[in-house]
C-alpha cells in the first residue's frame, strides 16, 4: 500500500533539489540520520537558521553604519558562506556570495537590495524546510503507532542503508530490484524490514 505521505516527502525533496534550494550536501547530511539520532539533519538545520539569523542581523547593523566597515561585513559573510555550505543551503549560499561581491562596488543602495534578497531567500528556505521536516516527523511517528513500516518507506530506508554501507565501505553499489536468483549479496525485504524495525524500536525506546 503506497503511503501518500511518503510520496509527498520524496516529491518535496526532489523539488527542493531540482529548484536548487538545497544541494547534494543536504542529502549527505540525511545519511547521518541514524538510530541514535534520527533527526540529526533537522537539528543541524535548526542550528543553522538560528546562527545565520544572527549573522544577517549583524550585517544589517554594519550596513546601517557610516562609513561601512567592509572588512567586518566580509568576515561575517565568510562565516555565513561556511555554514550555509555545510548544510547544503544552496540558494541562500549563492545569495550570500552575491552580497559579498556587491560590497566591493561600494554602492550602498544595491547592497541594501542584495541584503533584502538574502533575507527573503533565507525565510523561504526556512519555510520549506519546516514543512519538509514536519512531514518527516509525521512519517516517523506514523511508523511508531502502526508498527509496520509501509513498503515505500522500507524501500527508501533500504536504499539509504545500502548507500550508507557503500559510503562506509567505499564500494560501488548497484541497487537493483532482483528476483532473488542473482548471485551476490542480497538484501531481502525481510532483512530491510528488520533494519527498519530495529531502528524504529530504538526510537520508541528513547
Amino acid at each position, binding site marked *: 500500500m503506497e503511503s501518500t505521505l511518503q510520496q509527498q516527502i520524496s516529491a518535496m525533496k526532489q523539488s527542493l533539489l531540482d529548484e536548487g534550494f538545497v544541494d547534494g550536501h543536504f542529502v549527505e547530511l540525511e545519511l547521518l540520520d541514524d538510530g541514535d539520532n534520527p533527526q540529526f539533519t533537522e537539528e543541524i538545520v535548526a542550528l543553522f537558521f538560528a546562527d545565520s539569523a544572527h549573522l544577517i542581523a549583524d550585517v544589517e547593523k554594519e550596513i546601517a553604519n557610516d562609513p561601512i566597515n567592509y572588512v567586518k561585513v566580509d568576515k561575517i559573510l565568510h562565516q555565513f558562506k561556511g555554514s550555509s555550505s555545510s548544510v547544503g543551503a544552496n540558494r541562500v549560499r549563492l545569495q550570500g556570495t552575491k552580497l559579498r561581491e556587491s560590497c566591493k562596488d561600494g554602492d550602498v543602495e544595491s547592497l541594501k537590495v542584495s541584503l533584502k534578497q538574502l533575507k527573503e531567500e533565507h525565510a523561504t528556505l526556512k519555510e520549506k524546510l519546516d514543512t519538509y521536516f514536519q512531514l518527516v516527523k509525521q512519517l516517523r511517528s506514523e511508523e511508531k503507532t502502526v508498527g509496520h513500516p509501509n513498503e515505500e518507506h522500507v524501500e527508501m530506508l533500504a536504499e539509504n542503508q545500502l548507500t550508507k554501507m557503500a559510503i*562506509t565501505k*567505499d564500494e*560501488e553499489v548497484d541497487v537493483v530490484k532482483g528476483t532473488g536468483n542473482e548471485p551476490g549479496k542480497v538484501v531481502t525485504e525481510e532483512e530491510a524490514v528488520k533494519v527498519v524495525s530495529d531502528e524504529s524500536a530504538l526510537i520508541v525506546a528513547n
Partner: protein
Amino acid sequence: MGSAAGEFLRRVLPEKEKAGLSDHSSSGLEELHVLAVDDSHVDRKVIERLLKISSCKVTAVESGTRALQFLGLDGEESSVGFDGLKINLIMTDYSMPGMTGYELLKKIKESKAFKKIPVVIMSSENILTRIHRCLEEGAEEFIVKPVKLSDVRRLRDFIMRGEENRKKGNNHKRKLQDDYGMSPPLSPAPSLALDCEISSLLLPSSSSSSSPECHPSKRPRLRVED
C-alpha cells in the same frame, strides 16, 4: 514472497584492495580519538557527527587556543597527567579568529609530544598557495569543505593503517599518496579516472571547475534500476 518492494541486490563491484583493515570492529584496535577544531558551531556539530558515525571518539573545540589547552601545550602548568591522552588525529579548520589552523598546525609540529599526530586542515576555500603552505608545514591532508562521510571514512582507514603499522613496529611513515600510488601534490592535475575522494587531496575540485563556488556533489556511485 513476491511483493512490490521486491528484493534488493547489492552487487559489490569491483572489490577494492583493502589493507585488511576496512572493518574497524575486527581490527582489535581501540576507538580512534579525534580532536576537531572549528570556530563554526554548525561545522563542529557536523564533524562530530561524521566522526561518531565512523566509530571515532571526538573532542570538538572552538579555537586553536582551546585545542592547545586540551593538549596541554598552552604553557600552563598541567594539573592532570597527560599520559592517558591519546589523540590519533587532529582536524582543524583553516580560517579561525585568533589562531588560524595553519598556526595551530605549526605549534603542533613544533611540539615533541604531538608532532607525530596527523593534522588535517579543512577549508571552504580552495586556494592553491594555502594548500601548498599547509602541506609543506606537515599537514597530512587538506580537505575542501563541506566535509563528507567518505572523507572521514578514508581518513579513519588511513589512520588505522598507520596505527596498525606502529603496533607491528613498522616505523615507515605512510603517506596517503603512497597508499593510492599518487605523485606528490602540485603535480599535473590527476586524470578523471581517479576516485572522486582522491581528488580532494590533490588540487581540490580540479576535476571540476576551479571556481570557489563550485561544490560538486561527490556521492557514491549508486544506480537504482526499476
